């Protein structure tokens, strides 16, 4: 399944791919305020594969949503490739996502009435690209994720693993500079999960794409260049793991230390 990546390298930039400065996020439930993120300050350089772990409800997905521009922080600033997105209009964020960000969801989020091929091509379609321009790229990507025998099927006829591959391919079709993955292996089997992680690793290694992966799985987390831990809405900065030799047991040790 794993071949050389078929798509071109995204243009590199001297700015960090993602930066957050004192970002907080508070939700209002009736008359209560629930702080979910507190003073998150992060810098993710271009091409880094950052994994983030934390218990349920610690704010991982919320942070991911903020970084994707799907939501706005209560306070603080977020920058993508040196450009602040805090206070951007919805339209500006939409176009930014189209050009620079690929999102991989835990629950796939495929459009049920489009075929596999159409689901993957969707970002190109809505960007107004002509099919003859991206046709080859699409075919190569389909082949790369290993879904070529299902391209005319609808999502209802796919397994979880197949759907996640489609979701990944859709996130990659526009060659985004940044890939945000929210527990991509959460709903698939071990074998498929391993394949997905290898795909993501390739994206970072060969193409220099910046990847932020949120996960519960220590094995997946260990794939990252850097592992962050989120607890009670804050980054446990003294527990960050860095380097290629990060192993599962290091992850477990940190989790234990943090009492997660």
């Amino acid at each position, binding site marked *: 399944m794993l071949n050389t990546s078929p798509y071109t390298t995204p243009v590199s930039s001297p700015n960090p791919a993602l930066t957050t400065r004192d970002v907080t996020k508070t939700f209002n439930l009736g008359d209560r305020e629930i702080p979910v993120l507190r003073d998150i300050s992060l810098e993710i350089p271009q091409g880094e594969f950052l994994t983030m772990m934390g218990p349920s409800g610690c704010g991982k997905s919320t942070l991911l949503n903020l970084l*994707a521009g*799907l939501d706005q922080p209560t306070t603080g600033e977020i920058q993508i490739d040196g450009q602040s997105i805090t206070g951007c209009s919805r*339209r500006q964020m939409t176009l930014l*996502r*189209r050009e620079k960000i690929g999102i991989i*969801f835990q629950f796939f989020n495929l459009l049920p*009435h489009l075929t596999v091929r*159409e689901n993957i091509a969707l*970002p190109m379609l809505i960007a107004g690209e002509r099919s003859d321009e991206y046709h080859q790229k699409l075919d190569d990507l389909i082949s790369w994720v290993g879904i070529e025998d299902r391209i005319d099927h609808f999502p209802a006829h796919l397994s979880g693993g197949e759907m996640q591959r489609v979701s990944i391919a859709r996130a990659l079709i526009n060659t985004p500079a940044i890939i945000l993955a929210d527990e991509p292996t959460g709903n698939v089997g071990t074998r498929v999960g391993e394949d997905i992680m290898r795909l993501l690793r390739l994206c970072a290694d060969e193409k220099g794409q910046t990847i932020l992966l949120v996960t519960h799985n220590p094995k997946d987390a260990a794939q990252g260049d850097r592992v962050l831990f989120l607890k009670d809405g804050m980054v446990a900065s003294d527990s960050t793991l860095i380097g290629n030799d990060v192993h599962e047991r290091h992850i477990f040790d940190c989790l234990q230390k943090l009492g997660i």
Partner: protein
Amino acid sequence: MNAIFLIAFRNLVYRSSRSILTISGVAIGMAAAVGVFTLDYNTLMTLKFQEMGQYGTPDLEVIPDVKDSTSTIQTLNILRSHPAIARATPLFFTSITTLQPAAASIELIGVEPDASDWFGAYYLRGNGENMTLEDQQTIILTKKFAQHYGLSIGDSISFMDVSTGPYHIIGLTSNWKIGRRNNGFVGFIPFRVGLQTFQEKIQSVRYWIKRKGDLTVDALQHALPYGYRVVIPDYILAGEVGDDKVMRDGFRVGGLLTLILGLYMVFTSLSIALAERVKEIGLMQAIGTTNRQISAIFVVEAGIIALIGVIIGLLGGIGLTMLLIKFGYSSLGLSIRVWTFLIPKMHITLIMILGLVAAMLGVVYPLFKTRQISIVDALQQRGLHQKVAYSRRLYIVIILLLIIGVPSSFIFLAEMLGTPWLPALHLVSGSSILFAGLISLVFLSPKISGGFIRLAAWPGSHFFRYEHVLTTRTVAHATERIAMSLGTLALVFAGVIGLKHMTLSLKAQSQDWAEEALRQRIFLSTPLITPEEYHLFNSLPGVKFSIPMSYTAFVPFLVRGLPERAFREGPLSKDLDQYNTLLQTPSMLVTSQFAYRYGVSAGDSMDVISSEGPQRIPIIQVTDAYGYFIDSSDRGYAVMALDQMRTLFSVETAHANQFSLILEDEADENEVRNEAFGWFAGKITDIITGEQKYAWVVKGVDDDFFVFELLLAITGLLAGIGVTNTLLIGTLERRREFALLQALGITPVQLYRIVLFEGLIIGIAGGSLAILFGLPLSWIIVDGLRLLSDLPLSYTPDLTWIGISFTASIFVSTVAGIYPAWKTLQAPVTESIKYE
């Protein structure tokens, strides 16, 4: 654009059952409205063409009290010198029997030959050339008459009871337009010569006017000396007055109501369908689709649905019209045989635009709302259905549109179409306000509509235990969706109650009138005969006396003159003072429709234009007992003593051609009818007994109103489609719940019962609301029709039809649940539980 069309098209195909249901709603509503307006247009055109064929197409007619030659020249001078009259020509019509070649009944029409091109009502061309009727005793016959009697150019034809010599046949012409009168047996003679020859046989001379600009009846009436009456020609009034107008108005109201209900159903279906796709919208935004692109997708979907529905509806409506015409129906029931097939382009275009706009509006506001929802919430579908589709502001806008926008649009459209709008405004605005009230109750007060549901469900709680628990909890969380169903049912069946009460009141009014005017009578028509001849009718066994009914004047309302003998029967016979007053002084009786139309009663007076000038004539009684005529659909007229009428209006009374035979109480109408035929076979051209007419009126009303029943059935079908749609959405929302229940051991039959129970309680609640709003709506419709028709319609709530509507609401709603229940069982349990 490719992406937009691809996604829109795919979505329609993916949700095919919903798409088909929504398209059906548009199509059915459109078909009903198109069918109604097309059938009505063709009914009207048939009536008008009949009148145009019989009586030509002048802009106005002037009828003098006197018809001698001198006054004709004077009249023509006056008319032709009027600045607003482009052309004036005299005519007369008379039925006469020929002497040679054979005793045949022929209609003689006196014309000015050079006026034929102006008025287009007769055709004096033969062998490719114009024929000239010289001012001599010359005649141009229709080919049908000539062929029938073996006549040709150069022959002569003479007439009975006329002292002058024969008329020479100088030409044969086609049976075109007024050449079709008298079954095509027509002869055209020079007006002046004919007036002198047949003066005694001519009932009235008419002057046809072609006007320049907007010369009105009143303006011309004031310009003429006394003794002339200006009337609107029959072809203009055909179908636009009296009972005909009432039927047509009611028919069109029914069609519009069906269209509105269909469009409302579509509007709600599209609104709520969008609400269930919030997650899809969030996803599209997450991957970079702008709001404009998302809006475009849904607009394209709505546009495709609307376009397909409108086209199918248009074709279906035209097909429905063809079918109804084939089976003898018209917008006036079975009494008119429609022979035209024309498309009323303006009306159809407006209906199509309305259909497209309503379908598009169904997506506009929910799309607007989706922009305000956070993408994260949309992706996680946190309680979004309520937020997206339900908005108090949307329904407040709809309510304001109903209260202000609908009446304003109606006035605007009526002005555009050149039809009077004031009489109908009461009906339109009253109905709109009532619908606004229903929408307020159902959509702005979810607690109230929820309360209705709980009340409706309560009786079943003992028999449907688990269904009751599961369904009422669901309903409490799905107030918007339930409100859509409730609103649909309540609107449809309130409309059914309203329409049915309208037809019942029309029927009751016809029956009331018929009871008084038709019993123990025979009505017959003959060629013009003298008093000596028609007095022979009095000799028929069983006949008390006969009354000539031919003496009429338009003053400016219709007045009929009856001989003194007529008033010895009926209500006037019981009041000697009134009897004497009517015979000895200028006074009149008026029918109930007349009294209602003009807002008068006994003791009031009416202004008339007599031969001597304006006068005020007192009304001594309101009664329908006198003066019914078998060839008139307008029952609004006054009755005077013939002697008084002769004096006031110079009415010619030497001949008559319509008679009413008043029978003894114990006489059998059919026997007398047969006897009359035996005695006067050669003379009677038309005869009907009062009983036949009464049966025709009563049964005919039922048959005539078949098309209303059809409309009611269509609205019921629309209600069913609307409820099916919303129940389908409900089953989609509850997919995980049903899958879980199946995993826990619920059987398919039990699942069916849950869905059907929801349909049942919605039906009960909807039916109850239908009664609550249907009763005042029915009153508004009947009251509005009173104003439109000038008929004294009575209003009585009909418990039978209220019960039928309530039961139908339950039936439709329950049956509408069958398909959604079946769909529920098709979804695999594991798939439903597995993913979001």
